[in-house]
């Protein structure tokens, strides 16, 4: 009989135990979860062997919900309570959602983000997305037979703005996931491709999904994936091809889809016909409408006429992004197709002709994004060998603030590598002005009205001065998730205002707690238990990380400094396993503060090594 190993109380049994980290592609039409198992990144199937989870949530009676294939099958029968393509609503007000009038929902127009009234009550896109994410989290836990996920990398379209990214992160938190990083879908695809094909050079990733289009240019150099420029259209995808075909078919038959059921039914039929036209040249679009069956024959040629304006729109983005990068198409060494919509022959043809080379399609376009995310998640969890890959991504849209006359002063330019920070000084307009309203926007247009409003905040308590004498320094900081923090400070007086850019609908912790109380799908334990568990996990992680830092670089510390850190470690260790949430938090804070100088010294050493390594190469 094998002996069971028991570790010292509070010690992680084996510091080299692999942490389970997953990659999630939260797509418009379908979602996937992948993880690195036995050294290989692969999509995790459900109990029926299906990797793809349709991104559909149906709210049923009695607080039940159906998620995935089952919900998808019911979408035409129960359109009001079956939410499809929710990604198009993330971080959007009703007015921002193109074609919302044709969607079969009872929309609730709220400031910030639209919501949908279902039989289970009003649901925000964040909550709907969280149902999908929680389903995938559960699938991953079942696959690994483990309740402890270290964390997840979630992908977002490169062209998502701050509001859409924040909404995605909120949904992940609500689903009980520790978000290691948000990464851009084309970047994730490039990671999967680049590693699979050992590529080097400049690559274009053309990602046409169900609802979004991204084009990214990446330079691959020895494991570094550097995004040179990115562009796209956050509202262009397969759904638009379906809608164009549905409209055409109704017009051809002289019919109308007047009810929610009819509108959904004809869209479903259009999508089936579109998919059929990938391999055949003639399809029949058929469905049952309220006033009788609809049957319309459609040839591939006819469909391609409808598709052309949409493809042209995508190709215009491709040209723009090359111009942004000051590159020409001949510089591109390979074009990778990602997203189910790139299966359309007319899309493949247009891309191939424009770049003058056949696009690469040797990885499954549905799975490649999740696989790339899983590789990155594995790396961020510390499982991969050191220095394997590094992603250097960019911010897709410029950030600025409103100045006099509704004009935008751009502060962070699009395609700046993240993380990034920039400061700019502003001054007062009137004598004695003591407050200033600041309005942060994102977009490329000169007028505030044409950009996306991210946040408004006020700086008060500026000492009265003559106009133009105050110096207000605005600092923008964009982190590695592409999320923005803004701070403003009056330099003469030191008056300060800081905000995390959370648009008016952004969830605060109270919202999350409330949603959990209200019996959210992922809430299999109450919020207090969960937060205590999270605090313990945090403490364990910090203990482990600090010990391995000491093991590597203790020589940077004097004997006194080392003793101080040991003391803090011991104090944290004492409370880490206990039930006192506040004691754990306080110990973790003290340990973090007490290791600040050590962290700086270690970084310094790392930077020096990076530079000397280079010099050695040169010799």
């Amino acid at each position, binding site marked *: 009989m094998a002996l069971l190993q028991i570790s010292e109380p509070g010690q992680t049994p084996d510091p080299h135990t692999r942490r389970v980290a997953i990659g999630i592609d939260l797509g418009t039409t379908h979602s996937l979860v992948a993880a690195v198992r036995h050294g290989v990144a692969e999509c995790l199937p459900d109990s029926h062997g299906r990797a793809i989870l349709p991104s559909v949530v149906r709210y049923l009676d009695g607080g039940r919900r159906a998620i995935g294939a089952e919900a998808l099958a019911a979408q035409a029968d129960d359109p009001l309570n079956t939410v499809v393509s929710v990604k198009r609503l993330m971080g959007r007000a009703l007015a921002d959602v193109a074609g919302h009038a044709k969607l079969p929902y009872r929309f609730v127009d709220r400031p910030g983000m639209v919501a949908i009234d279902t039989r289970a009550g009003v649901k925000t896109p964040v909550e709907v997305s969280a149902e999908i994410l929680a389903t995938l989290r559960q699938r991953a836990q079942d696959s690994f037979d483990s309740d402890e996920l270290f964390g997840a990398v979630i992908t977002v379209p490169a062209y998502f703005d701050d509001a859409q990214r924040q909404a995605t992160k909120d949904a992940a938190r609500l689903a009980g996931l520790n978000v290691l990083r948000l990464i851009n879908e084309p970047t994730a695809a490039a990671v999967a491709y680049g590693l699979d094909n050992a590529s080097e050079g400049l690559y274009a990733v053309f990602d046409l999904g169900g609802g979004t289009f991204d084009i990214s240019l990446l330079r691959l150099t020895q494991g570094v994936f550097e995004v040179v420029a990115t562009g796209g259209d956050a509202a262009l995808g397969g759904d638009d091809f379906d809608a164009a075909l549905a409209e055409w078919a109704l017009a051809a038959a002289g019919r109308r889809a007047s009810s929610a059921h009819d509108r959904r039914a004809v869209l479903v039929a259009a999508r089936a016909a579109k998919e059929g036209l990938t391999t055949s040249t003639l399809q029949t679009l058929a469905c049952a409408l309220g006033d009788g069956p609809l049957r319309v024959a459609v040839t591939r040629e006819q469909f391609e006429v409808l598709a052309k304006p949409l493809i042209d729109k995508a190709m215009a983005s491709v040209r723009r992004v090359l111009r942004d990068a000051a590159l020409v198409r001949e510089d591109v060494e390979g074009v990778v197709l990602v997203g189910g919509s790139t299966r359309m022959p007319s899309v493949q043809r247009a891309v191939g002709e424009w770049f003058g080379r056949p696009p690469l399609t040797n990885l499954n376009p549905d799975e490649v994004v999740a696989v790339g995310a899983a590789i990155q998640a594995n790396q961020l969890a510390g499982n991969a060998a050191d220095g394997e890959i590094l992603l250097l991504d960019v911010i897709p849209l410029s950030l600025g603030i409103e100045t006099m006359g509704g004009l935008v002063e751009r502060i962070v330019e699009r395609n700046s590598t993240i993380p990034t920070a920039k400061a700019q000084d502003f001054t007062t307009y009137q004598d004695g002005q003591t407050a200033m309203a600041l309005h942060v926007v994102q977009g490329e247009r000169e007028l505030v009205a044409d950009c996306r409003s991210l946040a408004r905040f006020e700086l008060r308590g500026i000492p009265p001065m003559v106009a133009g004498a105050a110096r207000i320094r605005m600092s923008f900081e964009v982190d590695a998730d592409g999320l923005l923090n803004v701070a403003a400070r009056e330099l003469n007086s030191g008056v300060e205002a800081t905000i995390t850019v959370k648009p008016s609908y952004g969830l605060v912790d109270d919202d999350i707690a409330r949603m959990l109380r209200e019996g959210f799908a992922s809430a299999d334990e109450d919020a207090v238990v969960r937060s205590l568990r999270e605090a313990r996990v945090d403490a364990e992680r910090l203990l482990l990380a600090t010990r391995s830092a000491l093991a590597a670089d203790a020589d940077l510390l004097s004997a006194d400094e080392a003793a101080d850190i040991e003391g803090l470690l011991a104090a944290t260790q004492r409370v880490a396993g206990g039930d006192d949430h506040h004691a754990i938090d306080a110990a973790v804070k003290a340990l973090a503060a007490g290791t600040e100088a050590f962290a700086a010294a270690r970084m310094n050493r790392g930077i020096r090594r990076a530079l000397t*390594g280079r010099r050695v190469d040169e010799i």
Partner: protein
Amino acid sequence: MNLDDNDFTLFGLPERFALDRSDLDARWRRLQGSAHPDRHAAEGPAARRVAMQWSVRLNQAYRRLREPLTRAAYLCELRGAPIEGHNNTAMPAAFLHQQMAWREALDNAQSDAGLADLDLQVRSAERELLAQLATALDEQPAPALAAEHVRALMFVHRFCADLSQRIDALHD
């Protein structure tokens, strides 16, 4: 090595205008390889914060060193001849005449060919200014003269932006 060190020191490069772009790129990738927050994701909050600061600082320095215009402006500042683009717009008359001629040509250009011709002219002027900058910064050294060239280059770049906007409008 310090966050406050100047960009050249951070990248281990001599303080001069001439620069090997591929060497700069390689240094940047290498430095980010040890500083980037992703490299410290599994560490504590202190390490993550330091990583964020360094990564931001390296990106800022890389962006400034990468573009000849910002690199030149930075060198002028380091050598006591700040550009002050907003306050100092006095330019030689000949330069202003040329600018006006370009503006006129841009307003009157109707075709791709006309714009392409203008584009060639502007690019050649840009190359000439860059060559003069290299001399003023690396050979003479004459920071005040270099600052004047930088201001001229700023005008040229602004014009380039307008020009490519026109070319875009014609294509889209």
